[in-house]
């Protein structure tokens, strides 16, 4: 399928101030914890002190004695999930892996798992009451390490988990929840052709999205049973679906209003507290607010899987890749939720190679259930593949970018996941990286350079948009996708482009689930493409309607009307109506002007990115200083280039954090030892140089404006770029992340 991709733009590609900017620099913007309503009380969640235990009893009697404690809850207040499926867009979810995260049922599987909750008239009273809830546990042996968990004699988490992907289906339950393998070509023949083979194993620990805003919500239920939820989320409709399934309340009774969202990166694509607030509101008859503490966010939300990737790559002496073989093991925490499928599918997607084998194993441990984080599953295997590619280029005495150019995928190539590439921007991005001044900078002693390339699939999925025109011709664009990084600006720019009116006359709004048709969540790098696609569609429908109205006023056929620069034009320009004039006459031409679009985007196209990092290593302390950093990324078309750069820079710095300092540290009891920003060390401003960006635009041939996604691929190249730079600078080979100073120093001194 091909379509006409627009290339001449008037508004798209400019850098206006974002429409919601004023509210955000003045403190008026309302985030999750910012809503207080009349009669509101506060919920507090009781969490497990053990990593693995049976819940023998829960006694609320002491807590209920405190005046002002108005409701309590536990899993007994939620429907038993059994084998109930939650309807997803294309794949259904199992309720039994969501419900126990909200409230443990009979057993706790990780430290700080929710066990019970109380609601009281003040936050401090609720916290005090929570301490009085008596939970009797029978402690079970726990297992934290994936290899230990995979052993036959390991403490078993679930007696109803049988390894998926094994034929025949095992009859004995296991902590190994899934196994899969994908192949193309003949891997042995591929290695037989190789002149050089390098095999390494790279490990990445559990990391957290680290959004600055903790999860927060307010829930209330009216006398008719209608449920109102206000919360910070990447998807109000997702909250509606999941909260309905978890609480057993009909989905039609919910209205979910998304607040402004203080960061998510995938971490706010599920629910943790909303169902609790709903049940407490139901039982108390009062609006209930819950705000997670920072500590609880780290302990009990969904971090990213830790992983171990063994990769073996073979090349000929003239630098052609002949075989890529990877095995990935991912720790999913207490429930199956890891991105093992994309990890297996996408790890080697940047390279043209006839012989690829990729396998994955998902293991359950007594740790928090992992959840989505920016390009789920991709950064970990790509770290391993890219680092080995860098090592191979060095061994062959080839420039690492030249080596990649020789092997990079291009239009027509078929990757392991089977969908042939259309026009893609990897080679362009590689060439841009190579000619960037940063790549020419001369390295001094103890300095090193690393390159990383990456692929991400990007999502499409369902979105809707409504456009209303006021009587003075101003435009309201309504969508259901929380604006996590400037998407209101993109929506307004695309509407402006279609309607031919300045962006300043357009007010984009993110609305609640009662005010717009269903929209999948903000994630998968899909909002600009899919929700933007809905906006374009609605705007095009509105233009048709405007032409129709003008035709009626002029008594002409609609075919004689053109829409030019925000005006209906006919008779070679002698007849003109502006949008505002048509809006003023709407009452006599057929009623209010509006347009609605329903969109299921099947036109997503992949993104590629290339990063180059220069570092200096302090040989006496092992400390790494980032000297220069360059991100090159194919955006397809950058609707608002400044926010595209922002995604590139933000992803790069998160990846730098993973590479150098971020990691979950569990003690032997399975408690997270660094559940705060003091010791979970995300990069701070002084850790970094400016992050230079180059936007490449190879249009997505399937999208009217050429848009690809931009939010996720940016986190994939930094780890290999940084790790290679450090290893080169120090003359070491550390494959176990993060490359924290003690590890680097130990390798230098070894």
């Amino acid at each position: 399928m091909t379509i006409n991709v627009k290339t001449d733009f008037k508004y798209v590609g400019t850098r206006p101030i974002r429409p919601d900017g004023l509210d955000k620099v003045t403190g008026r913007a309302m985030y999750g914890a910012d809503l207080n309503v009349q009669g509101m009380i506060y919920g507090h969640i009781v969490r497990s002190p053990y990593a693995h235990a049976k819940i023998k009893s829960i006694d609320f009697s002491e807590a209920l004695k405190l005046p002002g404690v108005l409701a309590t809850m536990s899993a007994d207040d939620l429907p038993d999930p059994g084998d109930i499926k939650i309807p997803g867009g294309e794949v259904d979810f199992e309720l039994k892996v969501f419900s126990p995260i909200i409230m443990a049922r009979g057993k706790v599987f990780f430290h700080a798992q929710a066990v019970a909750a109380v609601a009281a008239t003040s936050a401090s009273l609720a916290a005090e009451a929570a301490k009085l809830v008596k939970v009797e546990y029978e402690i079970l042996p726990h297992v934290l390490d994936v290899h230990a968990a995979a052993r036959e004699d390991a403490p078993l988490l679930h007696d109803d988990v049988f390894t998926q992907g094994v034929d025949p289906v095992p009859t004995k339950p296991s902590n190994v929840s899934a196994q899969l393998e994908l192949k193309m070509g003949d891997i042995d023949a591929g290695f037989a052709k190789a002149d050089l083979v390098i095999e390494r194993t790279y490990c990445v620990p559990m990391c957290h999205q680290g959004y600055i805003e903790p999860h927060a919500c307010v829930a209330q239920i009216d006398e008719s049973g209608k449920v109102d939820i206000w919360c910070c989320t990447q998807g109000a409709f997702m909250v509606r679906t999941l909260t309905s399934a978890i609480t057993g309340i009909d989905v039609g009774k919910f209205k979910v209003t998304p607040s402004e969202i203080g960061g998510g990166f995938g971490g706010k694509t599920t629910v943790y507290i909303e169902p609790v607030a709903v049940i407490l509101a139901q039982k108390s008859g009062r609006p209930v607010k819950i705000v997670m503490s920072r500590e609880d966010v780290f302990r009990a939300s969904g971090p990213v899987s830790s992983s171990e990737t063994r990769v073996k790559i073979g090349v000929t002496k003239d630098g052609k890749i002949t075989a890529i073989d990877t095995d990935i093991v991912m720790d999913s925490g207490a429930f199956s939720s890891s991105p093992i499928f994309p990890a297996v599918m996408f790890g080697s997607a940047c390279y043209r190679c006839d012989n690829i084998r990729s396998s994955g194993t998902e293991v359950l441990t007594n740790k928090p259930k992992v959840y989505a984080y920016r390009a789920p599953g991709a950064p970990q295997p790509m770290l391993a593949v890219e680092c080995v590619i860098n090592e191979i280029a060095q061994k062959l005495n080839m420039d690492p970018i030249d080596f990649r150019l020789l092997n990079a995928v291009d239009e027509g190539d078929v990757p392991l996941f089977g969908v042939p590439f259309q026009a893609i921007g990897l080679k362009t991005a590689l060439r841009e990286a190579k000619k960037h001044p940063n790549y020419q900078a001369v390295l001094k002693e103890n300095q090193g350079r690393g390159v990383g390339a990456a692929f991400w699939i990007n999502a499409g999925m369902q979105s809707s948009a409504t456009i209303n025109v006021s009587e003075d011709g101003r435009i309201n664009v309504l969508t259901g996708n929380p604006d996590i990084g400037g998407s209101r600006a993109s929506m307004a720019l695309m509407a402006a482009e279609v309607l031919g009116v300045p962006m300043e006359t357009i007010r984009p709004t993110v609305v609640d689930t009662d005010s717009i048709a269903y929209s999948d969540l903000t994630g998968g790098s899909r909002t600009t493409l899919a929700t933007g696609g809905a906006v374009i569609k609605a705007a095009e429908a509105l233009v048709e309607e405007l032409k129709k109205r003008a035709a009626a006023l002029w008594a002409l056929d609609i075919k004689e009307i053109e829409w030019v620069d925000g005006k209906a034009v006919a008779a070679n320009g002698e007849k003109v109506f502006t949008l505002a004039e048509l809006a003023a006459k709407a009452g006599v031409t057929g009623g209010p002007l509006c347009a609605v679009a329903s969109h299921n985007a099947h036109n997503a196209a992949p993104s590629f990115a290339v990063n180059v990092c220069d570092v200096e290593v302090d040989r006496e302390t092992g400390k790494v200083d980032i000297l220069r950093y360059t991100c090159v990324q194919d955006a397809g078309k950058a609707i608002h280039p400044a926010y595209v750069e922002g995604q590139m820079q933000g992803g790069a710095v998160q990846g730098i954090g993973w590479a150098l300092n971020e990691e979950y540290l569990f003690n032997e009891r399975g408690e997270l030892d660094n559940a705060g920003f003091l010791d979970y060390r995300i990069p701070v401003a002084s850790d970094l140089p400016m992050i230079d960006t180059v936007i490449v635009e190879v249009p997505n041939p399937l999208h009217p404006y050429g848009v690809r996604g931009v939010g996720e691929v940016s986190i994939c190249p930094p780890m290999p770029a940084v790790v290679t730079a450090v290893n080169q600078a120090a003359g070491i080979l550390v494959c176990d992340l993060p490359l924290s100073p003690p590890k680097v120093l130990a390798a230098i001194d070894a």
Partner: protein
Amino acid sequence: MSKQRKTHVSTTVNGEPCEFLCEPTQVLSDVLRNNLNLTGTKEGCNTGDCGACSVMLDGALVCACLVLAVEVQDRDIETIEGVAKEGKLHPIQQKLLEHAALQCGICTPGVVIASKALLEKNPDPSESEVRYWLAGNLCRCTGYDKIIRAVLDAGAVMRGE
């Protein structure tokens, strides 16, 4: 919990006299947000590690989550709500917008307060000085690049350049 009377506090917030009742353990960020409905001051950690609750207390930059509300009797507090005056943005607010230096925006009020404090003390800071001054204002979205450029640019505007 022992029955305890709340403490009455009179103070000044954004130039206006202000009174509230608080529990002795309530911190200033809690009172600003939940007693005074000044929710522009954000809470990201409650332990002084993220800077989202930055406010000025008698001219000193502080984390409002590490100040007891009872301490602010007869003090002078400036919050994000008081930065734009008479319908006009402060240059740092304007420059953050122009540079697209916010994505989710949750750290932005704290960044505004902290940057303004820096530029009042050091009107012509180097990039490195801005970076170290703002090290306590965590931002997970932007990688800081555009924030740093916005602060440097706001400094230039304030110096009349």
